[in-house]
């Protein structure tokens, strides 16, 4: 007779094995290695919570300390490969296969290990894609997660950095898997219940907060005048004409400059209330001056940001907060919001080719995708209209009858023609292709595909790719804003002039912008301290960003 409850029984077995090292649900830190050894089995599919920001660091360390003779061939399914331990487990032979999304700080090491064959790569995903697969074909057997506090029943408070936790627990706990949470402390009553206790099987008290990476803090002091010029172009050349109210920003300095120009330059253009009111965005400190000046109505966040907690708690009209007052972030929901409910994504990239494909990989670094491809893509399932979406759709396809025409999300790449260390942003051939050859991948890791990109903004001007009618025009439009890079110098001057006459390329002067006005004095805050002051002292910048 077929057994229909093998997973349930397997979980029961794991709980029984683990309970020998626990009091109720609570496992002591000392017994953690023996506990993990008891509940894990070779070949398990494991989600070791590594998010964009928060990290189950205690559990990661314990997992890396296990005996590979007993626990091996684990298949890791986690969005972020961030801590050294996340890769140590592959080096030691505890884990073998990896499906992930993002590997910022470990991008160089992960590339070496992939080349060296120490990691068997499933795929590099976007966040939503990996979360989706948690429910279809990558459901974890064991989830090792992180929260701020728990009660003895296992009710978890995840604090401002909820991030991926509800998604991971949902997939694991409701499909026969085991959920183990590290918490900073065990309390009698949690401030709010982010994860109900019956979905959590064991708790470990770490007695210290989990590690959080401050990823979204951009020091206004480092914003250049070229970046300010690109920001002015974006505001006057895109935000204003399309009437962008719902949007997501990337994390680069160009978009930080836009945030800091809203209360100054944007105000001068009379745009308050007309643009940038609704956001899918992490709590960027650089948005504080615009929030304080009354620009922003609401923000939903993927995660939190170090130092922003008190400010967020004091601004519940703006942010999503729990009954306890602190931020409730949620990566899966916010990614969905950014994909379907925003009219614009704007972000920077490392390389753009002649078709508009962009990528952040270089041959020695595999940073993964994170969420940018979800934000930076046109959702084919979208059905609700908006001014910006309809206008962009019309520009792309003026011939179709309006009621049958799809709108378009604006996907904007913004940056200087020469990026960090004077490396050209525009290239004939992406490094991603070389990487795909080297690793024998079916797909080159493209962050944003060319057919999703609608505009490219550089200090030379804006290229509107929606208005290009063929591949030739597109290529020349891209060359036409590529400045003095080889790609830019390879332009067909006559054709670029024609594109400019048609408004496909617009230079600062075409928009009535004087590049000499791009001055740091226009920034609403020019230092981290200015941001702190703008927040009324509520923003508490981490030590590494201070210059006082």
């Amino acid at each position, binding site marked *: 007779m077929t057994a229909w409850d093998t997973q349930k029984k397997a979980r029961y077995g794991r709980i029984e094995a683990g309970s020998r090292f626990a009091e109720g649900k609570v496992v002591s830190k000392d017994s953690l290695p023996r506990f993990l050894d008891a509940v894990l089995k070779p070949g398990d599919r494991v989600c070791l919570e590594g998010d964009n920001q928060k990290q189950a660091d205690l559990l990661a360390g314990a997992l890396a300390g296990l005996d590979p003779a007993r626990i091996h061939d684990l298949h890791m399914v986690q969005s972020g490969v961030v801590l050294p331990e996340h890769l140590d487990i592959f080096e030691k032979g505890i884990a073998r296969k990896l499906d992930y999304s993002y590997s910022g700080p470990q991008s160089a090491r992960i590339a070496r290990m992939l080349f060296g064959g120490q990691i068997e790569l499933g795929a590099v995903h976007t966040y939503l894609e990996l979360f989706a697969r948690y429910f279809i074909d990558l459901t974890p057997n064991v989830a090792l997660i992180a929260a701020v506090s728990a009660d003895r029943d296992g009710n978890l408070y995840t604090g401002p950095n909820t991030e991926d936790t509800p998604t991971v627990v949902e997939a694991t706990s409701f499909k026969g898997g085991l959920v183990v949470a590290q918490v900073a402390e065990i309390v009698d009553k949690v401030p709010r219940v982010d994860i109900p206790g019956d979905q959590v099987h064991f708790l470990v008290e770490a007695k210290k907060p989990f590690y959080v990476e401050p990823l979204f803090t951009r020091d206004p*002091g480092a914003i250049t005048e070229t970046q300010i010029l690109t920001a002015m172009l974006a505001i006057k050349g895109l935000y204003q004409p399309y009437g962008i109210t719902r949007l997501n920003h990337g994390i680069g300095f160009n978009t930080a400059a836009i945030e800091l120009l809203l209360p100054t330059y944007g105000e001068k253009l009379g745009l308050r209330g007309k643009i940038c009111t609704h956001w899918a965005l992490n709590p960027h400190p650089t948005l504080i001056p615009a929030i304080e000046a009354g620009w922003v109505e609401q923000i939903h966040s993927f995660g939190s940001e170090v130092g922003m907690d008190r400010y967020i708690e004091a601004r519940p009209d703006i942010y999503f907060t729990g009954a306890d007052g602190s931020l409730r972030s949620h990566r899966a929901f916010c990614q969905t919001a950014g994909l379907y409910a925003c009219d614009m994504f704007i972000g920077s990239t490392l390389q753009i080719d002649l078709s508009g494909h962009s990528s952040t990989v270089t041959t020695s670094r595999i940073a993964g995708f994170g969420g940018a491809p979800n934000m930076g893509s046109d959702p084919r399932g979208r059905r609700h209209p908006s001014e910006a979406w309809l206008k962009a759709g019309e520009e792309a396809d003026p011939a179709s009858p309006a009621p049958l025409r799809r709108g378009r999300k604006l996907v904007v790449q913004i940056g200087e023609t020469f990026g960090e260390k004077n490396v050209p942003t525009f290239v004939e051939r992406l490094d991603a292709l070389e990487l795909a050859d080297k690793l024998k991948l079916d797909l080159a890791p493209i962050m944003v595909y060319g057919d999703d990109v609608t505009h490219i903004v550089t200090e030379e001007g804006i290229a509107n790719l929606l208005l290009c009618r063929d591949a030739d025009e597109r290529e020349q439009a891209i060359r036409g804003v590529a400045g003095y890079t080889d790609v830019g110098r390879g332009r067909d001057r006559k054709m670029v002039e024609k594109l400019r006459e048609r408004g496909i390329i617009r230079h600062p002067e075409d928009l009535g912008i004087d590049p000499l006005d791009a001055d*740091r*004095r226009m920034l609403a805050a*020019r*230092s981290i301290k200015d941001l702190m002051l703008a927040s009324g002292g509520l923003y508490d910048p981490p*030590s*590494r*960003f*201070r*210059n*006082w």
Partner: protein
Amino acid sequence: MSSWYEASARQRIDALADPDSFEEFIGPEEREVSPHLALFDLPEQFDDGIVVGRARLSGQPVLVAAQEGRFMGGAFGEVHGAKLTGLLRAARTLRCPVLILFDTGGVRLQEANAGEMAIAEIMREIVLARADDIPVVGLIGGRAGCFGGGGLIAGCCSTLVISEHGRLSVTGPEVIETNRGADEFDSKDRALVWRVTGGKHRYLIGGADLFVEDDVAAFRRAAIEGLSRRAALDILTLADEQKRLEHRLKRFGAMTEPRDVWAALGVLRPETVSGLATEAFLAEGLHKRENAHDAR
């Protein structure tokens, strides 16, 4: 209010000097560029990162030098150094006080020998000027801070003005970390870097004379005050100096955290000092700090 930290060398001079009084010597139009940088395929700047000239400050004639921290970190090279040396020599001939607007990481590595010699020449000229009772006032509040040879030159000035953002030391945080490890000094812990080298600490331990807001008008007022302070440097000053340094070493020598030094000075709630606004900081620090003196 306009930020000194944010301003360029030329913007600082414009804000500091009386309107339209500045006259530049060896300006960019003379293209007196570094003879060394081209060898390294590095870009040159027509003023070699320092603006020198004469101006009036509150009606009084002054000679001014302003380093541009955004060109090679304001570092001293051959031409850069020679312009300042020449200015200091002129100060003695003209018996005219000097303002040095520091913004420097020290000597330019690409022309290290010439840069080091320039530092020595400049120090010598300052000492000679002060022996003639000519004030040499240093102003520190730029992005690059005042490090390396810049720190040594600052130590020779008759008066030093510093803001919270200003940093003053000899060996920079990155160099210490490179040589001694992050455990010795974590250069990425910016709050620590500013606690140790920043304006507030320098002011509290008597390493700078006047503490001002990061504001060009505040620097101007302090520069005017600086010109009226005692400039002489003689054997008695040096003897006093030696005593003060011995005292400082005895009192703070074993401490590794600036907050401990501040506590020993009797500053209330040392942990809040970094966050204090200028006025509150001066109210707390003015009478508790080590007396300002030449030992910097």
